[in-house]
């Protein structure tokens, strides 16, 4: 894909905005349409676009498999960890109310963190699946 100048330039222009939109969908998900899953997929799409245009090897440098694998479990850990914290504060598992000053702000903080965990896991999983499929028959 080295010679496709138009594609390369368009991708270079768009990838930062795709990532920014992914973050917008992630952190605006509690006020508008969006949420962790969608944001994760959009963010992973930016990396996948990069891999399609600039080659799998370069994309693997951007998102090393070791870090991607760690992020998959880190997102789940964040989700479960946020769920456990209220248990120490005297509430049920995944009951976010004691996280904030009021019940409403507590729920808000809890949802935001849990969705962030979902986003990390989904993005990392999508990238890992793509790398697995794209790298089939190439290495190993």
């Amino acid at each position, binding site marked *: 894909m080295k010679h496709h100048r138009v*594609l390369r330039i368009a991708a270079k*222009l768009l990838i930062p*905005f795709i990532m920014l939109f992914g973050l917008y969908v992630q952190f605006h998900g509690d006020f508008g349409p969006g949420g962790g899953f969608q944001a994760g997929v959009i963010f992973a799409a930016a990396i996948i676009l990069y891999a399609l245009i600039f080659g799998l090897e370069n994309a693997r440098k951007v998102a090393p498999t070791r870090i991607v694998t760690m992020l998959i479990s880190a997102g789940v850990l964040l989700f479960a960890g946020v769920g456990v914290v209220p248990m120490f504060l005297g509430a049920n598992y995944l009951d976010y109310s004691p996280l904030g000053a009021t019940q409403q702000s507590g729920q808000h903080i809890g949802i935001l963190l849990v969705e962030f965990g979902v986003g990390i896991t989904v993005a990392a999983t999508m990238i890992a699946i793509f790398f697995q499929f794209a790298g089939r028959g190439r290495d190993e």
Partner: protein
Amino acid sequence: MELVADIVSWALLGAGSVFIVIGGIGLLRMPDFFTRLHPAGITDTMGAGLILLGLIVQAGFSLVSLKLLLIMAFLFITSPTTTHTTARAALAAGLKPLLAPEADRKDG
């Protein structure tokens, strides 16, 4: 002022619709793949662009119009790129334009 904005936005919306209709007719009437890409490109850039411009005039100076402007900017980058990529992919797959010299054309 309201009236002027209405007239301008309706003119833009109408012009955009005309371009989309032209694009649709062209898509059906053009003889081969590469010429069909041309009206398809018109629908994306001129048609959608003019309609979005009309909506911007209708929305006035606000966050909505900024968002519409961003959509327009991204459409103007992405849709010519996809048209270009489709044409290149067809060429790479061995499809030759209808009007190419007879010697260059592949059978079938």
